[in-house]
């Protein structure tokens, strides 16, 4: 519609071409329903679900963390679950020969002792500090992709650099909870909050 006005000077192929392109564009944008609407976001969480599983393999928990339930590993989510069906697939695997138990909590004080790793989703943005205070009472690995998580005393922040995933680890907080990160994981990550 916009390009049907006549031009005073020589018209190059350009404007007719632009009209066709605009037409094609609007046809595809507004007549074709956007398909796979949620897929783009879901797939980045697919990758994060796999990364959560891997993280658990590189962290050592204190013996007290498994007292009472030697054979299960609690993989928990605080807030809205962004992983969709991905955690159901991760659940089929095991961590250090322990069965994975997936739990979803909406409030930090509801989190039970049988969680060993907890992922704070984006819906926790306004209450990260309070949630971390409550969780610091137990030996739970706190992970999140909320921007600035490591600086706010979260243990592992999932960041994106150059289109690729990375970790930012707050070593101090991790050690204070009695957890230990394998040297090979530390080498691949950005470390903050080092004491010495």
């Amino acid at each position, binding site marked *: 519609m916009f390009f049907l006005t006549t031009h*005073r000077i020589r018209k190059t*192929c350009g404007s007719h071409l632009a009209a066709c*392109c605009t037409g094609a564009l609007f046809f595809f944008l507004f007549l074709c329903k956007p398909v796979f*609407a949620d897929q*783009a976001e879901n*797939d*980045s969480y697919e*990758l994060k679900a796999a990364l959560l599983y891997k993280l658990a393999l590189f962290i050592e928990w204190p013996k007290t963390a498994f007292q009472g339930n030697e054979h299960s590993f609690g993989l928990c989510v605080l807030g809205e679950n962004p992983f969709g069906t991905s955690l159901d697939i991760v659940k089929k*695997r095991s961590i250090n020969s322990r069965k994975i138990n997936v739990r979803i909590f909406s409030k930090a004080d509801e989190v039970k002792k049988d969680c060993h790793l907890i992922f704070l989703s984006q819906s926790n943005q306004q209450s990260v500090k309070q949630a971390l205070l409550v969780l610091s009472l137990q030996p739970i690995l706190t992970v999140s992709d909320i921007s600035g998580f490591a600086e706010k005393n979260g243990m592992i922040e999932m960041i994106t650099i150059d289109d690729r995933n990375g970790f930012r680890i707050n070593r101090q907080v991790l050690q204070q909870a009695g957890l230990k990160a394998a040297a090979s994981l530390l080498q691949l990550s950005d470390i903050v909050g080092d004491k010495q």
Partner: protein
Amino acid sequence: MRCYKKELLVYGILAVILWPTTTLSNEKRLEGYLDMPLQDLLAVKVISVSKKSQTIDEIAAAVHVITNRDIHRSGATNIPDLLRMVPGMNVAQIDANKWAVSSRGFNGIWADKLLVMIDGRSIYTTLSGGVYWDIQNIPLEIIDHIEVIRGPGGTVWGANAVNGVINIITRSANDTQGGALNVIAGNEESRVTYLYGNRLEKNIHYRVYADGLNHDSSELTAGGDARDSWDMARAGFRADWRMPGRQQFMLQADVYDGANEKTSSVDSLTAPFNTRVETEEEVRGVNMQGRWQQTLSDNSKTTFQAYYTHDERDALEFDDKRDTFDLDFQHQLKVGKNQEIVWGIGYRHVEDDTRGSRLVSAQPASREDKLYSVFIQDEIILQPDHLRWIIGSKFEHNGYTGFEAQPGTRLLWTPDKQQVVWGAISRAVRTPSRANQDFIITNTFAAFPVPGVIQVSGTETYKSSTLIAYELGYRRQFNRAMSLDSALFYNDYEKLLGTASGAAVCQPSATPPPCLLPGDTHLLIPSTFVNNVSGNTYGVELSIDWRPSDRWHVQTSYSFLKLSLDSAVDSAIDETPEGLSPKHQLSLRTSVELSTSTEMDIWLRYVDELPAINVPSYTEMDLRLAKDLSKGLELAVVARNLLDSSHAEFITTQNSIPPTEVERSLYLQLLWKI
């Protein structure tokens, strides 16, 4: 018949890319991830969806963020080319080393209504108010993102942020660790960049880079070599400290040295009066910048910044040495539950040394100016999660016009989580540049009985141009895959640049023409820069971001612009900006992941005609194909401006640059993370 071929080519490509690619089933892919070693998982490419939109939602302005992914996928090799994807930005390449870049109209080689900064350091030249884009060629790999705000930013950023603010933010040293080598080899451009980053101690990261570039000359519209090739060598470093007590310190410096081929003009009273000479323009300079941020508490954060720049540009007709020293302090303070106040003070000292020629000179040749500024802005939450009101102003005292005030107010309404409506009324000011007040430009031409001399001079009484802008915007997130951003504006300008002619007089006798007295050497036709143009502009900007699938991303932007100016003397020349702005512009980018290691990007652009300089409308296309050869090694093939062997984008009336065209080009790029 040429038309047909182009259309078929475009339709063909559109058909191929718009056909959804097959995807693996979710479960199979996740199982694959779970089997990979951690290192390989961290090398898988991520599509970050919401990072951009989260920050934009809170801003009551027409803002567009060019992410580093956009930069990487665009195939662009310089900043002006990147700006073409932003609605409302007018980008036109004049020749191989010069661009006209503006926001919402008034484009030209000395487009002066745009404030451009790198990490908060102003990069426009106080000589003309425009930006020398040839010396802003920092390696694109060190840019984290570019924030483009169309519309006045005077309230926070001060004078010259009349039609827009561009802030190019570079990556912190933490994000560029390790070594990287980027090699570009093409028929128009060759470039080698080496980057290296490391840690000094646990909390100090640094990076250094060295870059060399050579750009070939382009074609004249009339045919023949345009003699506009250029070479630039650059090096720089950046260091970031994270200190205890929530303090961050950043230090960076750059140094550059280069040369452009150009066509200069020599003006004289004897025949042939005005000759074109092929010469070289040499540029060199250094800049240093430091920033100290301290988070005093959860409610209070201060930033202190200082920078120094030294730029030299030597051309046959004019030499310029410019020193700028700037100090800035800013404090962000949360007051109560519902208010956030930002205030700041600044001081800038600019000193220059120029050497002119008969063609162009500055009177006085040397000048020192001080700029004092203070600003305050209050953001008040009238209704939590729904209504926010922002009011503020910047007050400046400068060496050209004295005291200037730039107040503004904005309102942000969030009816629900998916929509944002914002409105703004602001005042912005464009203070005179050195050229407006001090330049004398002479042009001699043959006449009878003595040559005629047109002389345009700046005057001390040249005032600031003012703008009152009314803006309205709407943003909507339709679903996880599609979002829309639109803005409407109406700009009311006063005291814009125009010229006023004086009576022609024979020199040196000072008698009226005809110049028959024996002592007279020329007829002087004087003219001065005056603020006698006013008018208004209005337009619409629209951008849509759509992800039809996980492997396919479509980004489109459209802008409409209409200028109507009035010169007090009804001068056609003064109303030229009307015909220098394109009425319609469209950009369509589509990014496809053909496989986990191959990507394809297509960028289609349409820019409407510029009737004042007889530049027709054009449609162009860039194509980029990239493949990960192995971990950390990426090969890309980029073809630019494919649709025409060459096309014109801009002809400048203010320089002796002959009309030059942008040519079709091809380059190969190897990005190797060592």
